[in-house]
């Protein structure tokens, strides 16, 4: 797009875009490390993730300041207005992704080294999927690629489906052996965090679509997460 008559306006918008890129890069890094820490039970790496979260928060604060000043100074219109509103929404999604990654890292501490690998394999697989979604949606934002954004939006179905099956799997383990309840609950929360990260990626995708076209994605998103309706049926009827 051509430049504004007032050059400082371009610089304002550019710096907002840069801050989103920084937040996105950090969120991606945090998530990758958190999943790694979980899969390798690497508590040092987990601590690193926990400590780094404040960097994302700090960028979000300065981005909000920049956005408020830009609105006050320039009264953005049309595409510029969408650009700015979308940036602030995406920033809050990325901030949440950072928090969820941090929570994931904390759980790496709670999962014992002795846990059979097959139990955490599903979580790790889901983590990779969420990471891929996040990476793709950030690429789509950087290049304003609506097609790619919509693809991410549709792909969330996969994460939901995986979440469903892990949820059921973990329930089964817990029913088989009550001693597993503690660790399985941690794993359950870990997967829930990843499922939420997937949702944030789809939020970002929706915002990219709005940014490009000026209207929301018209259709209903396919959803496969049915865990909220799952009823725990005990076979143990005394």
């Amino acid at each position, binding site marked *: 797009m051509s*430049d*504004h008559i007032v050059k400082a306006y371009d610089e304002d918008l550019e710096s907002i875009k840069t801050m989103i890129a920084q937040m996105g890069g950090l969120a991606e890094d945090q998530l990758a490390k958190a999943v790694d820490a979980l899969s390798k039970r690497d508590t040092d790496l987990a601590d690193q993730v926990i400590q780094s979260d404040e960097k994302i928060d700090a960028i979000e604060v300065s981005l909000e300041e920049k956005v408020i000043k830009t609105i006050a100074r*320039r*009264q953005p*219109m*049309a*595409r510029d207005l969408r650009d700015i509103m979308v940036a602030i929404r995406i920033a809050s999604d990325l901030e949440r992704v950072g928090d969820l990654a941090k929570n994931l890292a904390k759980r790496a501490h709670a999962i014992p080294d002795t846990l059979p690998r097959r139990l955490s394999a599903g979580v790790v697989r889901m983590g990779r999927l969420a990471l891929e979604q996040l990476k793709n949606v950030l690429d789509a934002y950087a290049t304003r690629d609506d097609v790619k954004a919509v693809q991410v939006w549709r792909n969330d179905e996969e994460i939901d489906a995986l979440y469903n099956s892990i949820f059921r799997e973990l329930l089964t383990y817990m029913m088989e052996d009550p001693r597993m309840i503690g660790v399985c609950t941690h794993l359950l929360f870990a997967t829930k965090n990843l499922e939420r990260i997937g949702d944030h990626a789809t939020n970002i995708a929706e915002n990219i679509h709005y940014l490009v*076209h000026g209207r929301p994605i018209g259709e209903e998103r396919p959803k496969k997460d049915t865990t909220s309706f799952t009823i725990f049926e005990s076979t143990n009827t005394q």
Partner: protein
Amino acid sequence: MDALVTQTVQTPSPPRILGERPVKITARDVNIYYGDKHAIKNLSIDIPDRAVSAFIGPSGCGKSTFLRAINRMNDTIPSCRVTGDIVVDGQDIYDRDLDVVQLRARIGMVFQKPNPFPKSIYENVAYGPKIHGLTTSRAELDEVVEKSLRKAGLWEEVKDRLQASGTGLSGGQQQRLCIARAIAVNPEVILMDEPCSALDPIATAKIEELIDELRQNYCIVIVTHSMQQAARVSQLTAFFHLGILVEVGDTDEVFTAPRDKRTQDYITGRFG
């Protein structure tokens, strides 16, 4: 019509009607010339009643020219020529038999610079009803003056000095006096040509508040250079560029997601 002109001119997409509001003014294939200069090119638009329509666009885009064509103010410019149809409530306003003075009573106008008559506040408002013979007694005239000043939001400020000169008021008050003067003859349409560009932000806010109230009863068309003002006061926005009506649509849509790139560039401050 000039064959040469139709070749070079592009017809804009068909105008849309705003919600359920009835159309008050219909323009079809309007061309306006100042001598050789082609100021408005093949313009077609529907302007709704009981709503505010804003014309925006860079200087020289033709928005004021078209506004002035709606109550035939351009008649006073000898070199100006208008072709096509401008119809108000089914009546062609360029009909030869039409009384232009009556037309301008129906279609009032407020200008950029407040221009009260060098007379008393009372006389400024009473002048129109008097010459149009709208009132039969002094009491009735008093009533019209009060009602008009009240509608213009000026009554409380001037009721104790109605005999003072209109030109002694502040700029914002003068502009509201001009609006009261326009309202006094019971118009159906009020045209406003940058009514706030000479006013401070507080006086501007008062006029905008007034415009918002007036739209309950009138068809208002406003030309403005302030995009924010167009976004604030209007329900329909029309963007003009180089004599062409580029885009017309719901104000909310035009300022958040305009369809045409030229509109986008203009309202975001990118016009080179």
